[in-house]
């Protein structure tokens, strides 16, 4: 059946089987491979994308359920080829990744957090990524990345003349 999704700001019309997951639709139909299949039953979080700004496990959502919604994938957070967003750059800087398989989902989750809470505490950061399993890092450098990004974003958004924090 036909679905119309707004993917990374662009309206996309595509044909899917009713049972097709949003994850498979993004990967197969749109070649957006940044969302990864990890456990395929909604626990590991590697398939996280943003649906109307909220983190959602795309392996548990049918593509047809996303009809009419705005989907943001990791490709949509990347400003331009060769460029990185403040959050993405912070993950690189603090080495907030190892194998990288969970990383796009972590970045998207962090993006959603910082959209609703510009100055999260360490506990709030830890809580926000508690639905995303990382098997490599032990989370420390990821938490550090999100804290660094929050700090940089708040400085960038501060009124002329100084940092907020």
């Amino acid at each position, binding site marked *: 059946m036909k679905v119309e999704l707004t993917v990374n700001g662009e309206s996309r019309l595509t044909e899917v089987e009713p049972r097709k997951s949003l994850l498979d639709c993004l990967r197969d139909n749109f070649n957006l491979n940044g969302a990864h299949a*990890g456990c395929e039953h909604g626990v590991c979080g590697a398939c996280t994308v943003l649906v109307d700004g909220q983190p959602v496990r795309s392996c548990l959502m049918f593509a047809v359920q996303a009809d009419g919604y705005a989907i943001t994938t990791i490709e949509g957070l990347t400003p331009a080829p060769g460029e990185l967003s403040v959050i993405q750059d912070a993950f*690189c800087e603090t080495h907030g990744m190892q194998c990288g398989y969970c990383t796009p989902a972590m970045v998207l989750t962090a993006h959603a957090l910082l959209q609703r809470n510009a100055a999260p505490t360490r506990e709030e950061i830890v*809580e926000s990524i508690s639905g995303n*399993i990382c098997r490599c890092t032990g989370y420390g450098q990821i938490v550090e990345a999100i804290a660094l990004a929050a700090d940089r974003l708040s400085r960038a958004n501060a009124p002329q003349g100084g940092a907020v924090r």
Partner: protein
Amino acid sequence: MSAPLARVPGGIHASVRHDSAAGHVSGSALYLDDIPNVPGSLEAALVLSPHAHARIKAIDLTAALAAPGVVAAILAKDIPGKNDIGPIRPDEPLLPTDMVEYDGQPVAAIAAGTLDQARAAAKLVRVDYEPLAPVLSLDEAIEREQFVAPPQIMTRGDVDAALKTAAHRLSGEFNCGGQDHFYLEGQIAIATPGEGREMHVFSSTQHPTEIQHGVAHLLGIPFNAVTCEVRRMGGGFGGKESQATMIAGIAAVLAWKTRRPVKLRLPRDDDMRATGKRHPFLIRYEVSFDDGGLIDGLDLMLAANGGNVADHTPAVLTRALCHSDNCYWLPNLRFRGYACKTNIVSNTAFRGYGGPQGMFAIETIIEMIARHLSTSPEAVRERNFYGIGRNDVTPYGMKVEDNIIARVLEELDRNVDLARWREEIVAFNRQSTIIKKGLATMPVKFGISFNRPALNQAGALVHVYTDGSVTLNHGGTEMGQGLFIKVAQVVAEAFQIDIDNIRITATTTAKVPNTSPTAASSGSDLNGMAALNAAERIKARMTDVAAEQFNIPAGEIVFQQNRVYAGNRSMSFAELAALSWEKRVSLSATGYYRTPKIHWDFATNSGRPFYYFTYGAAAAEVAIDTLTGESRVLRAELVQDCGQSLNPAIDLGQIEGAFVQGMGWLTTEELFWDEKGRLRTHGPSTYKIPGSRDAPPVFNARILPDAPNREETVFRSKAVGEPPLMLALSVWLAIRDAISSLSDYRLAAKLDAPATPERVLEAVDEIRARAAGSGSAI
């Protein structure tokens, strides 16, 4: 040729970003499942045994073959070559002919036009089984003497006499569980038939050469007809060392039969049922010691649950025996290792490779000795540490020449003030009735090198192009651990060029042959040295060209920050590369390295298996709820010896990640097989991987400063992948400490790992009853 100027960006000892960092955060780093299928490609699915032990009476593929989109099905008889993928010992079939030996064992595979079609058709395969009684417990396997490999023994002194004469003696048994790797990217391979008998295999593997060999055996073709390639894995942890061969092998047999590219990607539940894990161990011991805790005799039995076939079990067991001493001199000992055959999936390599289980054994025994003597584990350890220049020979005959455990422990204490921390815990427990806290430390000594000397070699291939850009290839594989960037840093340092000029390419058996697995923490030690060797060979040729050009002796040529200097004259590295080509000098070289000094005698389990040891220490604080058995790690402080770290940021990631993974093994990650031998925890909803809230809220990992490797490793660095996993034994010991507090630290907990809430609660009740029975206040 010392460096007079500033350091080259991206050289050694710098926290350079992971080479794939930008790709990882933008989703553009490609994993195998991200490669678009070429037209005509097939997707595959497996048929798994629902029985732990059964005879296969008949397999009917009719319905499956008639299902929509199905192109082929394979059984054991469709394997054109030898049905054997054993990594160490022979006769480990890819697909079974007449018997299944574990729940989840693949018996058939289907290839179809789409993944959904393949998975649907797999469900239509009818297998007629005659179920047989499975052997599931280690006790039963030992009693039946049912082993996948011969028992191993390590002895010294007269243990029987020592056990008879000492002042104190303890004996008993305890267990530790296994662990699923849970690499976030599941097992996957794509096999593409080429011209004639060629087969190209993309595999998410830590061991491309083993894939090459396995596929060649299965297809009955020479090694040179198979190419295996891997750019990156989404995690490995040992789970993609031998286990990837099954996946690649099935994809290759299907591709051979259909003459079309075949992709096999396991769904998570199948992955967890069908592939091996860390070995559960049963430990039996008898130990004797004096009033101060000095160990005289230790009779130790380690029984590993090998599962249905040997796979890596014999080697895992050897490493377990080689780490049952940890940091301690044991004058009289008998270590026995049993590789038990049971009807569960064959267990395999997992970060630490038996080392964690060996240290689990000795450290738990030391804690029991401490409770028996009403002293601290630290005091018992202090009595038993290897000496410097005396009492310094391991049970396998290797002299511990680089012992820095005292320094590592001092560093830990300086950071945290253990005595004061201990007082706070005891004070807390005095006023808290339900929540009890525990504190424990953990010293680690871990041997670096594969036990089997032949595996300690590596190759590399380096090309310099005439614009000065460099392509780097070596036999190691990237699974997130940062091997590629570390080796690139080594090459950048050697040539004195910016790391951005070096392109790191996918590992392939076509570029560097006969490689060792990326395992045993040895990736950068081996491949870094091989790449350095290649770079130095090219650099020597380029130096000669520069010397001739500037008309000065070669010894006066200096490579520095992208330029090549001859006194006050210079040219860029790129100009020298172009000039070298002009002068018809080769700008390509292979590099090679073999670890010196090592030897091992498998017959006597003795020798010098390890080039060096790496050391670490940790302290962990936990809290347990004595009403529910739940536990939390509140704080962890780590010090890890990395030699002169090649990349401190990468190494810190390894240390923290290993610690949390080790915590998972010892606390939440429970593999549960039911009475029929069916794994019931085969997804992350039932098998609990540590999440962000499980990591210690206060968590400080430090690299031991100013500690260059005594041995001549690559720029005096040390291996880091596995050793810090064992620092997590501090968490295990801290939980035991919290339970022991209920007996005023006089009794040791009766507890097996993982310390799940159920087990902790049982241990709490048990120790209270015992303490009350012995007349102690609680």
